[in-house]
């Protein structure tokens, strides 16, 4: 977990994603993702948390090339995948990185049957020799995600939300990806179904040794599910640490405020909960730009030199 001896499956270096709107003097640039870097190692789950609009989804989408990054580099299995790619390379990337989306209704084509949805990736990547072999693989994956053979011929509308999300997971996993980007995979589901999907993802990860980038806004779910967590705030990665460290010793004031805002199912804790407010003006970055600095092993915080000293004091 967080094993640095491993080569990273995904290396994100100074990734920038700006969106512009308007023209001339009305031109506005939104820095959705502003210079973030992190690595994801084989077999681990990396969680990205933050409020809506902080750029966590954009990060995922820039990695998988749904957007063209404005700047920075993304390496996948050691190869540069941002920038221009040949068709062959692009296919390798889109097979190797698969995505599970938030909305299980919108992410499945209503006019395709389940077997068409799941089999599409196999066909595109020429991963099966015959129709029979494809069906066998589809039946196999359906069983893995907790559905049955009979479901293959049906259409998405015949399924409940949880089952649809299982189809989305099956579609992502059938091409044997090296990295799965799960973008809020449970937030559109009912409470009683969320645990089913979390358990399924957990089991699949252990069984298939998946590497997952888990994007969510719910810190307790991310904490449960991830080995390491990155906290994003306004397009920046402000803190990155192993999930236990982050929860026990949050250092960046934004992380503290985020942790203090989460309501927990414990009334006596709730009665005594003190919320910490985050005021970005506490940072004095006039003379030097803040950088991600390692405070304790594998615990990075976006800070200036003076702040880094202060954080090191704090953690002792």
């Amino acid at each position, binding site marked *: 977990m967080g094993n640095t001896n491993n080569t990273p499956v995904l290396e994100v270096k100074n990734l920038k994603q700006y969106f512009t709107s308007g023209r001339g003097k009305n031109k506005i640039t939104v820095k959705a993702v502003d210079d973030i870097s992190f690595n994801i190692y084989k077999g681990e789950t990396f969680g990205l948390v933050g409020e*809506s609009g902080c750029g966590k989804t954009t990060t995922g989408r820039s990695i998988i090339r749904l957007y063209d990054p404005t700047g920075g580099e993304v390496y996948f299995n050691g190869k540069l995948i941002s920038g221009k790619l040949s068709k062959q390379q692009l296919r390798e990337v889109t097979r190797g990185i698969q995505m599970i989306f938030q909305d299980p209704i919108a992410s499945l084509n209503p006019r395709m049957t389940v077997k068409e949805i799941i089999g599409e990736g196999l066909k595109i990547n020429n991963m099966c020799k015959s129709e029979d072999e494809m069906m066998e693989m589809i039946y196999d994956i359906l069983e893995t995600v907790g559905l049955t053979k009979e479901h293959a011929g049906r259409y998405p509308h015949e399924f409940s939300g949880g089952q649809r999300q299982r189809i989305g997971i099956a579609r992502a996993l059938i091409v044997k990806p090296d990295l799965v980007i799960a973008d809020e995979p449970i937030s559109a589901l009912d*409470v*009683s179904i969320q645990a089913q999907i979390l358990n399924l993802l*957990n089991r699949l990860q252990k069984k298939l040794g998946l590497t997952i980038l888990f994007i969510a806004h719910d*810190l*307790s779910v991310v904490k449960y599910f991830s080995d390491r967590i990155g906290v994003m705030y306004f397009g920046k990665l402000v803190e990155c640490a192993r999930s236990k460290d982050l929860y026990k010793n949050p250092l960046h004031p934004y992380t503290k405020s985020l942790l203090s805002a989460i309501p*927990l199912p414990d009334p006596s804790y709730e009665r005594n909960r003190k919320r910490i407010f985050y005021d970005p003006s506490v940072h004095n970055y006039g003379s030097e730009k803040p950088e991600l600095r390692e405070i304790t092993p594998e615990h990075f915080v976006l800070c200036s030199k003076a702040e880094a000293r202060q954080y090191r004091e704090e953690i002792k």
Partner: protein
Amino acid sequence: MKNQEKILQVKDLYITFNTFSGKVHAVRGVNFDLYKGETLAIVGESGSGKSVTTKTIMGILAKNANKESGQILYKDDDLMKYTEKNYNMIRGTEISMIFQDPMSSLDPVMKIGKQITETLRLKYGVSKQEAKEKAIGLMKAVGIPEAEKRYNQYPFQFSGGMRQRIVIAIALACDPEILICDEPTTALDVTIQAQILELIKDMQKNRDLSVIFITHDLGVVANVADRIAVMYAGKIVEYGTTDEIFYNPKHPYTWSLLASMPDMDTDDKDELFAIAGAPPNMVHPPKGDAFAARNKYAMRIDFEKQPPMYKVSDTHYAATWLLHPDAPKVEMPKILKKRIERQKRRAGEK
């Protein structure tokens, strides 16, 4: 909660909907009381009938709904017998409601100020000037900076959290007695959610409001509620004070709900306690305990006969056959037991 005035009593409420696939039994015999000044949280997943219950109280059910039976007693009146005209007299002034999505509950082409003063002008016939003063006062009370300037702005100029504050201001404009909050923070971010919850609690304290709070988020419930009613498949399966429900739950569904979500201390090696299957189809509600099919503690009687409400304490009741004197002794799931012990220990340390 003892010796307190009951402000609202819901008795044996039964609501069905006509649909193409048949009659949907959305609410099947719900009973609860709301005391003055308390917050009652109704918890359940979607389709459990929690929203339908409150919509019935507000008299805003869809046209295909049938009020099969039941009473809603408010100030010696039965709201079930109210006509639309009667309802107009109490909506906003006596009972008010906040909805989930602050964008769709505001009129996008009407200025914020007008939306707040609308009810005041309509219900109390106050002058424009007076209404404006009151509205600006309200906007300040719900924490909107530069209220005078904001008064003349449109909803799109407000952020999600600010919009929900406006919705709260509108709901409170005519000083209602009861405030119904239907998932008021589900569409909001955690930090904004915390602010809105604090605001609702403040308003409640200052105005002595009685609040019905609907949500599926147990963390939010632990934060706001005095008492909790857990709903499943159109019935209340367990109710009690917040501490009783969280620290001494009795119904297997409550166990599952509590155990199914990880908290900050949940070990990543623990498998979550997932509830198998999906909620029942309410066109053909199950004969016995509706939760039986998904309940690993279910006994044969659960499939045949609906359990009555068993008394656990004066304030705590649960509808499960497990509380029958002849039932086998069953323990709650281990993961939940461990968590409650941990929480109690932590509470003890403080």
